[in-house]
């Protein structure tokens, strides 16, 4: 979505207004700095965090876990969803398992993950895996199952075999669903890794916030939260860019051709 320059600027209006109100309330002494630091204090805490090199390290740690967990989740969820969509017998066996495990929040897996994998990257990646798996699986499965039957029929009536129909109809038609799943999945993955770091995994952005809270560094807590938000936003935006490049037929604006 490429907005005209002016609209992009006005889109930031509310954000800037909120910052202004927040700063004003802080300057007037309405907000207790121990409970809600001023934007200026948050900014300077962020800057100290950044110049120490810890910010980049914390981000890299958390992102690495998300990357690994997402890779595993995508690698398992996509083939499984394709297979479940194509093979009803497998689908029937899989459905109760998926439906039982899906409602368990990723954070509830943290104790088990810590027991199994220790406190390092593997435990965090396992929690990310759980968070990202279900959105990706569900989206791809839905995409495959809801592929327009008339397109499958058209392909078969042209003489296409099972393999060509699977690879060029089901898998391709499900691509927009895959990207939807990845967008939701990466959001879940990001939330999962922060949650895991808050409650047990001892490094990364979540752990930084938790540490700052115990040291009563409220400004750093808020700086950390905003950073988490910003990184999450960037991940979804990056995914959107990849999506536009990968499936231009789905996202490309329509050029109307009215010559019959």
């Amino acid at each position, binding site marked *: 979505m490429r907005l005209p320059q002016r609209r992009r600027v006005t889109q930031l209006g509310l954000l800037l207004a909120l910052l202004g109100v927040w700063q004003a309330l802080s300057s007037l002494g309405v907000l207790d700095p121990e409970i809600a630091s001023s934007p200026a204090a948050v900014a300077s805490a962020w800057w100290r965090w950044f110049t120490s090199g810890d910010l980049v390290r914390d981000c890299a740690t958390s992102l690495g876990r998300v990357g690994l967990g997402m890779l595993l989740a995508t690698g398992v969820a996509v083939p499984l969803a394709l297979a479940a969509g194509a093979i009803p017998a497998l689908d029937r066996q899989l459905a109760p398992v998926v439906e039982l495990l899906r409602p368990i929040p990723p954070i509830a897996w943290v104790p088990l993950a810590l027991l199994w994998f220790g406190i390092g990257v593997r435990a965090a990646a396992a929690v990310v895996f759980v968070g990202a798996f279900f959105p990706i699986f569900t989206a791809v499965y839905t995409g495959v199952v809801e592929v327009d039957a008339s397109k499958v029929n058209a392909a078969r009536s042209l003489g296409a075999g099972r393999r060509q129909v699977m690879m060029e109809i089901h898998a391709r038609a499900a691509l927009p669903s895959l990207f939807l799943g990845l967008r939701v999945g990466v959001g879940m993955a990001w939330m999962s890794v922060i949650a895991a770091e808050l409650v047990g995994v001892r490094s990364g952005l979540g752990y930084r916030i938790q540490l700052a809270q115990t040291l009563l560094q409220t400004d750093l807590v808020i700086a950390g939260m905003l950073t988490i938000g910003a990184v999450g936003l960037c991940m979804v935006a990056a995914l959107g860019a990849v999506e536009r490049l990968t499936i231009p*037929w789905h996202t490309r604006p329509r050029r109307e051709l009215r010559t019959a």
Partner: protein
Amino acid sequence: MAHATAARAPDGVTAHIDVSRVSKAFERHGKVVRALDDVSFAVPTGRVLAIVGPSGCGKTTLVNIIAGFERPDAGTVSALGRPVTGPSASRAVVPQHYALFDWKTVRGNVEFALKAKGISRGERRALATDHLERVGLASVAELYPAELSGGMKQRLAVARALAVEPPCLLLDEPLAALDYQLRLRLQNELTAMLERARQTAVVVTHDVDEALYLADEVLLMTGSPGTIDSVVRVSLPRPREPYMRNMPEFAELRQVIWDALGLVEARQPQQEGITPACAS
């Protein structure tokens, strides 16, 4: 009269498509809907059969059964002398809403068909260009279906089906989504195309003129349960030309079909008929 003997293949002519005593029922909202009831007809080699009837009379079900997408509850269908057990490139379909592959370019849609036919990767490109040129789409080969006009989509659906060089072609409401003028123009293209390729074709339509313009025989169906009402032979030479629409024979056949479908009274307006609006 469930058996359309008029559509039987004459002796010595192979019936390319043979539908024999086909019945099919569905369950919808707990009720059994008899979509087809004891339907029989045959299409001789190189002939075009149009199926006309009101919505819900089982036209599309019939085409789906011939295509092999659905199995009949009773009766048999054979094509090229073999029983139909599933879809096959020998009975390519131009589907109702085209069913183009949105994720492939115009060229990609045709190349898909060529790949299904077993054409090697190296030859596909040039062949696809040939097929697209034939329907006037070579200049938009790299666009996606979403970027095409309705007429272009229709032509692409036809080009894609013809790319597998099917002996039989099934067209399900091929022009229903187009405006009137475009429909007339594409009817000319279709009649020329069917003549050139000498395909055996089944065209489903609810447009009586279209059926008469394209087909050698028009099968009239009535609904619930879907049965064959009668068969009308169109003895005008093919390919049809636009002037034929105005021939008395064409008008008579149209009236025959209208009568059979119970659509329009044939009587000339007299005293109690149509009176000019300004007279009173």
